[in-house]
C-alpha cells in the first residue's frame, strides 16, 4: 500500500500496478522523478501557509468564498471578511474581465471552419482508406477540447473574481451543450466564453440571444438542419425528392422552452413547440451546409437563412408573431425572457444552486419578483440573492459537485494544473466530464444526484492521490484553517492534526464533510 508520503521510486517500481502508472495515465506528471520538484514549483510558492488564527474569520466570509465563490485560496478569507456582500457585488460591476487563459483562446468561427474542413477531408480519406487523415480530425478536436478545458480550470483555480466565475459556470450549465456530439467538443469552451461569459452580469434577454444564436448551440440542437416546409428550399426539395424529405427539427425550440426559459411546467404545449420551431427555421450558420444544399454568410458565424425560413405568421403561447425573418424569433425570445414562468424557473435554479437543494419558497418568490420588476436584470437578481438571509443561514448546505470539489481543491493548494488531463481525469472518474453533461438539461444540482456511495469513494481516492502528489509541502491543519477559517470543525481539525502522515491528514481534510460541502 502506498499510504506513506514518500514517493519512493523503489516502492513504486515494486508495485505490480504502480502509482507511477496511474499518475501518468492521469497526466498528473510526466516522469515520476519530478513529482516533488514539480510540487515545489507549482503547488505552493511559500514554505508554509500563512497560519490564520482560528475564530478570526466570520463564517460569513467562508460562505461567501465557498458557496458564492469557488472555495477560498489561502489568504482570500481575510480579504472577504472586511465586507462579504461588497466583495461579491464588486465582482459584477464593470466590464467582463476574463482571465488571461480565457483571452488567449481562438475564436469559435475559426475553429469551426477548420474542423469542418477536416471533417470533409476525413470523409474523403475514409473512402480512400487514408488512416492518417481520418485520425487527424479526432486529434484536432481533442486538442481544442483539452485547450479550452485547461483554460477553464486554470482560470478557475487562479481567478480573484470567483463569484463571477461561478456564475459563468452556472449559466453555461443552464444553457448546456454536450461534447458527446460532434463538433461540440471543439468549441464547447469557446461557446461558454463567447456567448455566456460576457452576458452573465447583464439582462437575461441578452444572454438568451447570445446563446441561442451561437453556432455551438445551433449545431448541438440541430437547428441548422431544420427547414421550413413552406420555405423556398423546403418546397423545392419536397417536390423533387420523394424518399428523403427535408423538414422541421423541433430540438432547439423545445429545449429553449423547456430548459432555457419557461421550464417544463411553464405552460406551453406541443403546438407551441411546433410553432416556435417554425419561427426559428433559418437560424443557422454561415458557410456551405453539409450537403451543399445552401451556402452564404460568414463561415462559422450565425447566419439567418431566409430560404429555409418558414414564411408567414405563427401563433405561440396565445400571441401572434407576424414579424419577418430573424426578427420573428427575436420577438419570441424577448417575450419568453419576460414571461413569469421564466422568472420563476430561473429563480428556482439560482436558489437551488446557491441556497439549498430544496430552496424555501420565500427566496424563490423574492428572486422571481426581482427578476420581473427589474426587467430580467441579472445583477439585480444576484443582489436580491446576496441580500437574502436564507443564503447565509446555514453553513455548508450544498454538497459540492465534482466540478466544485476539484476547483476548490486547486484553489486551496494554489495549484494551477499544467495539463488539462489532471482535471479531466479526475472529473471523468467522479462522473462530471467537463462540458459533457450528456444532455441539454446540463448537470444536476442536488446531492441526491451526486451522492452515490461509489461517487463519494472516488472523491476519497482522488483526495488521497492529490495528497500524495503534494506530499510534504503543506501542513494540513494550516490548510484547513486558511480555507475554512472558523468553519473548520474542531473535530475535523483534531482528526487532521492527529493523522499519521501529512498525506493522510490532507486526504482526511479534502474528504471531510467540511470541505465536501459548500
Amino acid at each position: 500500500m502506498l499510504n506513506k508520503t514518500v514517493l519512493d521510486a523503489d516502492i513504486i517500481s515494486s508495485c505490480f500496478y504502480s502509482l507511477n502508472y496511474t499518475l501518468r495515465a492521469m497526466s498528473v506528471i510526466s516522469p515520476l522523478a519530478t513529482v516533488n520538484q514539480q510540487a515545489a514549483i507549482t503547488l505552493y510558492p511559500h514554505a508554509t501557509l500563512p497560519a490564520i488564527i482560528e475564530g478570526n474569520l466570520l463564517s460569513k466570509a467562508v460562505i461567501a468564498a465557498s458557496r458564492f465563490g469557488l472555495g477560498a485560496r489561502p489568504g482570500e478569507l481575510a480579504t472577504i471578511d472586511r465586507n462579504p456582500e461588497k466583495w461579491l457585488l464588486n465582482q459584477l460591476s464593470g466590464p467582463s474581465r476574463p482571465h488571461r487563459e480565457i483571452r488567449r483562446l481562438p475564436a469559435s468561427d475559426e475553429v469551426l471552419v477548420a474542423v469542418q474542413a477536416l471533417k470533409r477531408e476525413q470523409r474523403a480519406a475514409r473512402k480512400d482508406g487514408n488512416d492518417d487523415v481520418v485520425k487527424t480530425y479526432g486529434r484536432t478536436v481533442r486538442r481544442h477540447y483539452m485547450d479550452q478545458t485547461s483554460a477553464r480550470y486554470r482560470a478557475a483555480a487562479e481567478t480573484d473574481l470567483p463569484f463571477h466565475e461561478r456564475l459563468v459556470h452556472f449559466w453555461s450549465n443552464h444553457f448546456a451543450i454536450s461534447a458527446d456530439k460532434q463538433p461540440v467538443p471543439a468549441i464547447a469552451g469557446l461557446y461558454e466564453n463567447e456567448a455566456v461569459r460576457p452576458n452573465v452580469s447583464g439582462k437575461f434577454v441578452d444572454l438568451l440571444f447570445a446563446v441561442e444564436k451561437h453556432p455551438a448551440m445551433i449545431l448541438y440542437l440541430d437547428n441548422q438542419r431544420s427547414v421550413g416546409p413552406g420555405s423556398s428550399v423546403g418546397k423545392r426539395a419536397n417536390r423533387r425528392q420523394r424518399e428523403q424529405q427535408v423538414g422541421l427539427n423541433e430540438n432547439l425550440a423545445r429545449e429553449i422552452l423547456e430548459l432555457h426559459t419557461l421550464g417544463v411546467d411553464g405552460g406551453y404545449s406541443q403546438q407551441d413547440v411546433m410553432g416556435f420551431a417554425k419561427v426559428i427555421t433559418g437560424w443557422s450558420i454561415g458557410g456551405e451546409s453539409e450537403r451543399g444544399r445552401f451556402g452564404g454568410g460568414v463561415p462559422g458565424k450565425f447566419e439567418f437563412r431566409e430560404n429555409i425560413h418558414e414564411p408567414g405568421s405563427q401563433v405561440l403561447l396565445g400571441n401572434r408573431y407576424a414579424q419577418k425573418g430573424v426578427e420573428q424569433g427575436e420577438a419570441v425570445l424577448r417575450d419568453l425572457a419576460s414571461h413569469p414562468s421564466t422568472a420563476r424557473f430561473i429563480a428556482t435554479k439560482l436558489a437551488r444552486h446557491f441556497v439549498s437543494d430544496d430552496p424555501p419558497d420565500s427566496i424563490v418568490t423574492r428572486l422571481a419578483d426581482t427578476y420581473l420588476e427589474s426587467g430580467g436584470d441579472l445583477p439585480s437578481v444576484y443582489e436580491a440573492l446576496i441580500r437574502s438571509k436564507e443564503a447565509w443561514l446555514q453553513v455548508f448546505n450544498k454538497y459540492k459537485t465534482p466540478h466544485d470539489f476539484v476547483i476548490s481543491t486547486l484553489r486551496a493548494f494554489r495549484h494551477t494544473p499544467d495539463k488539462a488531463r489532471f482535471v479531466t481525469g479526475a472529473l471523468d472518474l467522479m462522473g462530471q466530464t467537463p462540458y459533457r453533461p450528456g444532455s441539454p438539461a446540463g448537470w444536476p444540482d442536488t446531492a441526491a444526484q451526486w451522492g452515490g456511495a461509489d461517487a463519494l469513494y472516488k472523491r476519497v481516492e482522488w483526495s488521497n492521490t492529490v495528497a500524495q502528489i503534494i506530499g510534504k509541502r503543506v501542513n494540513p491543519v494550516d490548510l484547513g484553517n486558511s480555507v475554512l477559517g472558523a468553519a473548520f470543525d474542531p473535530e475535523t481539525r483534531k482528526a487532521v492534526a492527529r493523522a499519521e502522515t501529512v498525506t493522510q491528514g490532507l486526504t482526511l481534510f479534502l474528504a471531510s464533510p467540511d470541505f465536501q460541502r459548500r
Partner: protein
Amino acid sequence: MSNYRFSRRSVLKSMGLATFANCTPGLTFAEPRHDGNFVLLLLRGAVDGLALAAPYGDGNYRRLRGELAIPEPGQSGGLLKLDGLFGLHPSLRNVHQSFSAGEATILHAVASPYRERSHFDGQDLLENGARQVGVVRDGWLNRALLQMDRRSGEEMAVALAQNTPLVLRGDNSATSWAPSQLPDVGDSTLRRLQNLYADDEFFASRLRQALRSQDIAGDASESGNGRRRRNDAKQFADLMHSAARFLTAPDGPNIAVAELGGWDTHANQGATNGALANRLEALDTGLGNLRDGLGEAWRHTVVAVVTEFGRTVRVNGTRGTDHGTATAALLLGGAVNGGAVVADWPGLGVGELYADRDLKPTVDVRSLFKGVLEDHLNLAPEFIEQSVFPDSRAARPMRNLIKA
C-alpha cells in the same frame, strides 16, 4: 490495484461496523444462491423500437420507414426473425440466441404513462413510476426494496453507475459502483475517515456501502488493467461483466441497475448499419457478457431493457427520427418464459398512429414491471399497488412473463 490486496471488510469489521450478516459468515458463504436476480437496464435517449424489433410484416412499415427500413429476414443484412410480423435488428445476435432458447421476450408498443416529448421528464416517469411528472421524487425500484427478502444485512441493490439513477434513489439503501483507476487508499486512512464521518449519516452510510462494493469488485478492477477506456461500448461490455460479479458475490446484491445512452437518433440513424446499429451492437455485446458472467445464476435472472419513449414512425428531414411515444422493451434471462413477441399490435396504418406520428401505446411499461416484481421477485400484489406503483390499477400486472 497493487500487488497487495486486502479485504475492505477487514476495515469494516475492525471498526465494529460489520453488519449482522457477518456474524455468521460461514453460513452466508456456504449457502447456494437460489433467489431471483433482477437487472434493469435503462437505455437513455429514447430507443427507436421500430428498429430494435421491426414489424416487417406490417404492410405500412417499409413505406413509412423509407431508407431506415431494414431488409426482411433471410435477406442480406436482414432482420433476425422473431415471428411472421416482427424481426430483431441484425445487431442483436445474442438477444436472438436467447429468444431462440426460450429465454427472451420482446414486448412491443410499450410506453410509460408519459405522453409528452421531453427526454428528462420521460426518464423521470419511467424511473419514479408515477403517472404524472414532478410528483414523485424517489424511484419505484427503491420503493420495492422495502419488501424484498434480504439474504443478508447488506444492500440488496447496486447501481453500476457513477451516480445512482433515479429508479434506485430513495429511502431504502442501495449502493453504487463504477470502475476506478486511482491508487488504493490505505486501511488506516479509511478507518480514520469512518470515524470522521461517524456523526454525518450522509457520508457515513455512503462510505460503508462503498467499502463493501470495493470488496466485491476487487478482482474486476484488476482485470480491467487500469487503462483509460474511452470507448463506451467497451466500457458497457466490461460493466456487464462487473454486474455479473456483483450478482454472483456470496452475499452481494441481487438487484442491479445500469444505463446506456446514445439513442437519440435525430439524424443519420442508419438501418442495418450506422449509428443506431452500432449502439444496438454495444447493447447486445453487454447482454452477452452478462449472460456468460452469470453462468448458473442466469437461470434465476431476469433482465429488463427499457427506454423512456419511442421515436416517430416516419423518417424526419435529417434521416433520423424524432421523439415519439410507444417503443419496444426486452426481457431476458433464464427465468423468463420467453420465445415470443408480446404485443397488442396497434398497426401503422392511417388513423392507427398516436397523434398521427407515433406508434400507439397498447401496453403500460408498469404492467411489465409489476409482473416481474410479483412473479419473479415474489412481492405481494397489494404492496406493489400501494407502495411501488401507486395510482396504477389500470396497468394490470402482465402474466406469464416468468417461468412457472
